[in-house]
Structure formats: structure tokens, C-alpha cells
């Protein structure tokens, strides 16, 4: 028991004052996540704005938390939302259930469903946490057109899928996924 005992107890405190702060200053400063952080989902679009989702429900099948609900719809020449025969007429993700595992992303056969880095998924209303297509669809980038509209980039869906990678490299057509990857988390908000 020495006279400095009372001060020595503050040793940890004082030394910590000169270390780097680990506290997050959220929400004033948002944390930059890892590039492959599993955040909110996004339904991507083809470069002309048509939806990539074909309503196949494989994401719903893969989901271990039963968080995804999909209903398919039939594209017609008059009302077309995606290339090919089928589109997702109803697409819901319930973020009360979603565990962010990303199995849905792996299941998606058209690369329609991807995850953004957005992590602010809290609300005071359970209903609001069921995200519909209007909140899940990727924003329209320049050159994109709000569906329904006819296929602009080819005669049939083969052109979209087979020539898709090539189109993505061309400068005159925009690709939502590439944009998404390049966007910083701050910019995506």
C-alpha cells in the first residue's frame, strides 16, 4: 500500500487516453465495411433497364430463414419486365428474418440478386422491414429505362445472357453490377 496507489489505479485510464480510439462515431461517421460485406440485397438490371430477375424462386428455395417470397409472372410482348418468358412479379425480402448468409446470392442463376454494403436495416415497424421490389430494385442508371418495355439489346433472351459479358465491357452500355461494385459504400447510400 503506497501513496501512489490511488493514482496507479488510473494508469490504464491515462495510457488509454493516448491510444487510438476504437469507439465508432456512428451515426455521424459511417463505418466503411469490407468490400464483400453482406448488406441489403439488390435486384439488378440489364443495361437497358430490364430486370434480371426471372422469378425462379431459387433464392427462396436456398434461403435457410424463409425470408424471401417470390411469385413469378408471365412476360408478354406488350408488358415486358425481363428478357425471356418469366419475371418476378412479386419479390419480397423480410429483413426481420434475413440472416445475411448470402446463400440466395449463390443460388441466383441470372446474377440478379446481389448484396450491397448497406447495413442500416433497423426500423420501428415490422411491416416496413419487408422490402418489396420497389426498394430492392437497383436504381436506374443513365441509359436505362423503367420497365415494362421491349428488349432493347437483342432479339431474345439469349442475346442478353450470351452477349451480356461482352456488353458489360462496352462503354456505351451501363452495367448495374459493375457500377455497384465500383461504388463506394458512402456513395451507395
Amino acid at each position, binding site marked *: 500500500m503506497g501513496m501512489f496507489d490511488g493514482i496507479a489505479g488510473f494508469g490504464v485510464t491515462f495510457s488509454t487516453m493516448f491510444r487510438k480510439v476504437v469507439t465508432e462515431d456512428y451515426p455521424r461517421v459511417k463505418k466503411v465495411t469490407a468490400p464483400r460485406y453482406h448488406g441489403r440485397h439488390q435486384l439488378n438490371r440489364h443495361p437497358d433497364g430490364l430486370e434480371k430477375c*426471372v*422469378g*425462379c*424462386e*431459387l433464392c*427462396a*428455395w436456398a434461403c435457410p430463414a424463409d425470408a424471401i417470397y417470390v*411469385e*413469378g*409472372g*408471365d412476360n408478354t410482348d406488350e408488358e415486358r419486365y425481363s428478357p*425471356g*418468358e*418469366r419475371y418476378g412479379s412479386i419479390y419480397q425480402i423480410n429483413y426481420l428474418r434475413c440472416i445475411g448468409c448470402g446463400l440466395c446470392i449463390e443460388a441466383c*442463376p*441470372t446474377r440478379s440478386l446481389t448484396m450491397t454494403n448497406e447495413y442500416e436495416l433497423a426500423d420501428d415497424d415490422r411491416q416496413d422491414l419487408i422490402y418489396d421490389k420497389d426498394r430492392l430494385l437497383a436504381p436506374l442508371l443513365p441509359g436505362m429505362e423503367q420497365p415494362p418495355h421491349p428488349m432493347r439489346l437483342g432479339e431474345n433472351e439469349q442475346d442478353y445472357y450470351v452477349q451480356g459479358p461482352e456488353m458489360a465491357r462496352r462503354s456505351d452500355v451501363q452495367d448495374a453490377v459493375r457500377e455497384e461494385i465500383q461504388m463506394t459504400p458512402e456513395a451507395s447510400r
Partner: protein
Amino acid sequence: MTAASEKAPEKPSEQDDLPPVPHGHVRLTIDDRVVDAPQGELLIRTCERLGIVVPRFCDHPLLDPAGACRQCLVEVEMGGRKMPKPQASCTMTVAQDMVVNTQMTSAVADKAQQGVMELLLINHPLDCPICDKGGECPLQNQAMSSGRAESRFVEEKRTFAKPLPISDEVLLDRERCVLCQRCTRFSRQIAGDQFIELLERGAHQQIGTEETAFGEGEDFQSYFSGNTIQICPVGALTSASYRFRSRPFDLVSTPGVSEHDSSGAAVRRDWRRGAVTRVLAGEDPDVNEEWIDDKTRFAFRYAQSTTRITRPLVRGDDGELHETSWTDALEHAATALLAARDGTGPAALDADGEPPGEPKRGVGVLPGGRLTIEDAYAYAKFARVALRTNDIDARARAHSGEELDFLAAHVAGTGLGVTYADLESAPAVLTVALEVEEEAPVVFLRLRKAARTGTAVHHLGQWSSPAVVKTGGRLVRSAPGREPEALATLPDDVAAALATPGAVVLVGERAAEVPGLYAAVSDLVGRTGARVAWVPRRAGERGAVDAGALPTLLPGGRPLDDVARAQLASSWGLADETALPATPGRDGAAILRAAASGELAGLVVGGVELADLPDPVLARAALREADVVVSLEQVASEVTQYADVVLPVAPVINKSGTFRNWEGRDRRFATTIDPSGGSSGRVGGTAAITLPDCRVLDTLAVEMDVDLFTQTPEVAAAELGHLGAGRPTEIGPVRGPDGSGDADGDTAAGTDGSLRLASWRQLLDGGALLIDEPELAGTARPPKIRLSTVTARRLGLVEDAMAGLEGPRGSLHLPVELADLPDDVVWAPARVPQPGGGVVTLAGLGLTHGGPARLTGGTTTDGSSA
């Protein structure tokens, strides 16, 4: 039949220890296992019994072998020598000392199967994610089990325009087709509708119809087309109404029973989120095998219709129906029914302006023909105990007193009679007043199957309808209304055929339209010894007969005599037989007449379509005149417009119960979707918890201070089962009409352009359960007026010309088709849906089968004007 030994076959010395080969069997070796199989069995079936799954597409146990897909190749050794190439096990029958090696033990067979799979997949699009078959696809599954993981095919795949509608209900995707020919074989062998066939050769070989081949012609006009969708092993044939609706893993599958006809066919209802998305055929070898008709398969959206009634309605002082509570509605109904029963109703008290005569008294009950046996029993008991009357008649169609005699003598309480299997093995079958394909499609399929194995099928009718042709049948032609004479003077060979043991007479409900026909049928079966079965159209008819929902029959086929009433009274906990009404009740028409003329004060109406009744005008008058009309309905109908209290009842998918089919077989089913199960019973956003008729009647009876004890279908069924059959020891004769009840026809035909009318209902004719099914309605046979060539020439009508069928209350205009009818006879469908909604019925026009009719639209005849 069982694996005789697990020992290796190479040691003949050990085979000597095996038991001798049973008679009619052969002993062979499959995958080193010795097995005895009946002679003529296909190898693939023997493998199945051993638990060896040989992949296959074209093979179907109910279709003839085809060997079309070549997927089931196995290695076969006969007499110690290997066959040079692998053989298709679905076409090869077993033989003595055969040695078979499947893909399990033979590298050759395995490689052959992989090769075939690779070939099948060459032109198959990789669109499983959007294919309706994806997830339940034999091709998908077997590509995983016996295909290679990576495709070696880098060339361009063959493409076709898709999807190609080959009917309103069936879509064809030719890219996905593996040419197994299950669909064409089904259509040719089972349904007899050769509308689809293989077209073209080589790589362009495809399934198609006359329409797809030539741009015009017939499409897939079959009542059984939906079965091809179900048996298609790939996604080449898909349903237009189910297109992209859901995926197999979304669906809950519940077994059920067809509610659309009296076949009692097993079905499987697939549902998701409180709504049925599709109906598939269930498997029941004793009843429908694996087939159902399109009406049963595709008509299910009525339960989700926006016209569903889900809350009780009571007519207020403003003359409009208002939603109210169950308590309020039941109280209203009970008070009004009690007043009507006892003759203390409003008309009796304040008959202002009318002479004070006999007060209106009594309530008639019209339950309709679509009830489960439990619900019919509740109606029967409700009428006897709560309303104290025998005025109950479930026959919402043409009916007669003669029919009641016939039902009492041959149907009520007889239990399981003629069965589907009996039809199949019968040497001869005669159908009377029954157009099997239109009125009992599952029976038609079995008759066709029987005809293919030698049963002689005779039809008493007017023309060679599709059913006659497709059953290879012989038409015993008779003028409409003259069927009794035709039965009395059957050709000798037909009568002789019916006298052979096992022969069957099938009589339809339309026999009631012809006076004397039921008596003639009864005579005929008495004369020839043939067995008789009554095949009504609706699912609930047979159950209603056995449950006592008829004016002269009590539950179990009991007559109204003192003994039966005493027995029933003790079972029902009543004092004695006097507690039950003894006078025979009015039949349906008499109930309506009495209500219209002010004798009856009230009506309790179940699922009855007024247009189906023999006199819709009388029915409307009756509902208008009755002081109180209580309607128990699923959807808003014409009765709703007249009803004072409407009580919602559950559709078949929301309740359990039993349909007793025409055989007398009880077809019990459980609830498909439990309406009280959270969100599952939703209709249009509001929770629709509806109750079965028996529960509603039970609660209504409690309000009237009577206990029915039919709270649940299970309780009602138990009570009815406990009552058992109570057929009298002596069955009365079936009394035909006195004298010549059909004398009016003698003068009618031929003289002044007046013709005799023949008619029956078509399968798809805008019935109440077919609402909201546009695809199904598109596959209905177009309604036509049929005439003989001679009559058409006399009237100046040609094929496809429009003709007007004139009745006392209006006319019906339809195109003409020439057929082999007797001269001076015109055939028209009994019910014709109109393009703008609604239906026209011949009964509504005042026309009857066998009665006179006039045709207009011709160019040469007397008195004709378009």
C-alpha cells in the same frame, strides 16, 4: 414374386436348392439376384420390385410399352450369350434363365444410359429456373443421377417458337420435348382423342396438332388434356392457368376428392398461402387410376372468387342484404323459419287486401346436389326434426316420382354396388340416359379401357356422339322420349349380351326426363339379370339419396313406414315415431309449386342454381312468394337476390367430409386448407372462416330449440354410420306413368316444322363451379344444334348455318352440325353459356328432352323466319 435368393447365379449347384418356379412364372437373374417373375412382365417392373430404379421417360404403367426414349437400357444375357447391344427394359419381357445387368452392376448399361441422357439433353434448353416442371422434373432428376456433370455440346441448340398454345389450357414447349410420346399415347389409348401427334422427322421431329402443323384445323380439344401435362416427364406440356404460379417446393399437397362429378376421383390439391394453385390427379387404382377430367383438374378458383360470401347477410327493412353477425343472422333465420313452420308468419297475421284463407304453413328444403353425405344428412335431419316435414328434395334438376321409386328399389342404402372394376370386367354395358363423356368422364375412361379389352358397350341415345365412337360402342338409336319402347324392344343380341353374367346397365339422372324410362330400366334388369348402377352428374347426388335428402326416403334408404320412423326416432332421441312426419313429402317441383301458390311459407335453399331446375320461372316465383327464404351458399347466386337470410358455407377445400360416389363407395377427404389456420384461409384480403353446411344447420337448429348433433362432419358421419342401412325387405315396383304419359310426342314431329328435341348437358357449360376459369372455358366444346341430313335439307339448313331453336319462352341460336340423328329430331346442349356472361338453358326456354321444338333460320321451310 419375391427375390428367391440372394445367391450368385454362377453356381448352378446352389440353384438346385431353390424352390420350384411357380406356375406361370419364370426365373431370371437381375443384378446377381435370382427372382421369379410372372410371364410377360416387363423387365423394368421386375427391377422396380427388386428396388432397382432404372431411369426412364416414356415408360408409364398404364400406357402400352413404346421404347421411345431409350433411357432404360440394360445389359441382357440369354442362354449364356450376351445380346450384342443393351436392351430397353421397358419393352422387353422377362424370360426363363435371363441374366440382366442394370446400371448398378454393368458398366456397359451405365455408359449406354449416360450416352442416351447426353443425346436427350443436346437440344434441351437449360431453362430449368423458369420451367414450371423445375423441381419435380424426371429429366432434371435423372440428369443428376445418370447424366454427366458437364455438357460437351458447344454447338447451337435447335430452337422453336415457344410457348405454343395447343389449346387454351395446354402450352407446348417443343424445345424441352424428349419425344417420349407419353402424351400422344395417352390421347390415343386412354382418352381416345387423337388431336396431338408426332410430326416431322429427324431433328425436327415434334409434337403438334393439326393447327400447329397446317396453321389451321383442330387444336387439342380433349376433356382429358390436363393428364398429358401431369404425365409429361419434362416441361414440354405445361398448364396455361398454372403458368409461373409457383414452384413445387412452395406448395403443400393435400389429397382430396373431386367435387365436380359423381366419380369420386382422387385428386391432389396443391396450395400456397391459403389459395389452391393447381389440382392434380391422385392415384387410386380402384377409382380413377391416375386420370381425371379437365373440369376436375382446372376448376378450383371458385373458392377464391370475389363473389364468395364470407359473412352472414340479413335483408334489412330497406330491402337490401346487410352483413351481420352470426348470432343475429341465425336468430333472424330461426325466428322466421319457426313462424313459417307453424303458420304464424307475417302473411297469416296481416294479410291485408287478401281474403283471409288458409295461412301459409310449412317450409320446403332444397339442399342441392353438391353436398357431402354429412351435409346432406344434416339437411335431411333438419327438415324432419326442426321443420317437421318431409318436403326435402336434393335433386336440383329434372326429377320424377318414378325416379324416387327407382332410387328406393335399386340405389338407396344398397352400399357398394357396381364398381369401376366391374365395368372393366363386364362382358357388356348398356348406358341409358347417360352421355358418359359429358356427364361422367371418369366412368367414360373406364368404359373405354373396358372396350379395349373386349367389353361390348351399348349406348341408348340419339346419335353417334364422341362417347359412342370412342368406346367403340354400338348405338341403340331411339327417338327422344321413346327410350322406354326402345328398351322394351332391344335388339336380340343386345338383350342376350345383357343377360350374360356380369353385364351392367348404367342409367343416368336424365332418365327422369322421360316418363316410363326408369320403369323400363327396372324391367330390363329384372328381365335380363343385368346389374344396374345409377350414375348421376353431381358429386352429392348419391350421398343425398343415402342420407335421406329426398321426400320419400329417410336416411339409410328407409321408407316412411312406422317401423323405420320408430327406429329413427329412438336413434335420434325423440319420443316415438309420431315425432317424425309420416306423410310423404313434396318433391322439388311440388315444393316450388306450393311455395309459388302460397301454400308453403318458407324455403331453405342450399347450393341450387335456379337455371338448372326444370322450371326456372316457377322457381323464381316460388322464391319471390315465400315469406322467408334462407340460403346457405358459398358464392352469390340468383337465390341470394331473393334470400332473406344468407348463411355462408365452406367450399370443399375448407371442410372435411365424404362424397359417396356413384358406386356407393365412400370417398372421405380431409380439410385441404384449414380456414382457422392463421392467414391460410384468406379470400381477397379478409379472413374467410366459413363452416360446413352441417355445422351451420346444427347451430340454426339450436336456435330453433332442436339438437341435430351434426356439429362436425365427423360427428354427422358417425351418426349416419351408426344408423346403417335400413332398406325394407320388400321393395315396391317402379311405377311408370299411368297410361301413355308421352302421348304428346305422337302428333308433334314432322308435320308443321315441329321437331322432337333431344338434349343433354355438356361437361363445360358455364356451371357455378366454373367461374373465374377463362382457360378452361376456352376448351369447352362449342355448342351446336345437331340434325340429320334429311331433316336439315327439309328445313333448308346447311352445316355451320345459324339456326334458332324456338321454345315457348324464347329462342337459342347456334350453328348447325349434321349428325346421324333420327329424322325430325334436333339435338341441342341443355345449357349454353353466353359470351356476355349468364347462361341459356333449354328448360328456361320451356323445352324438354323428348318434347316438341321448332327450328328457324332455314331457307325453305314453312313458317320459318330468322
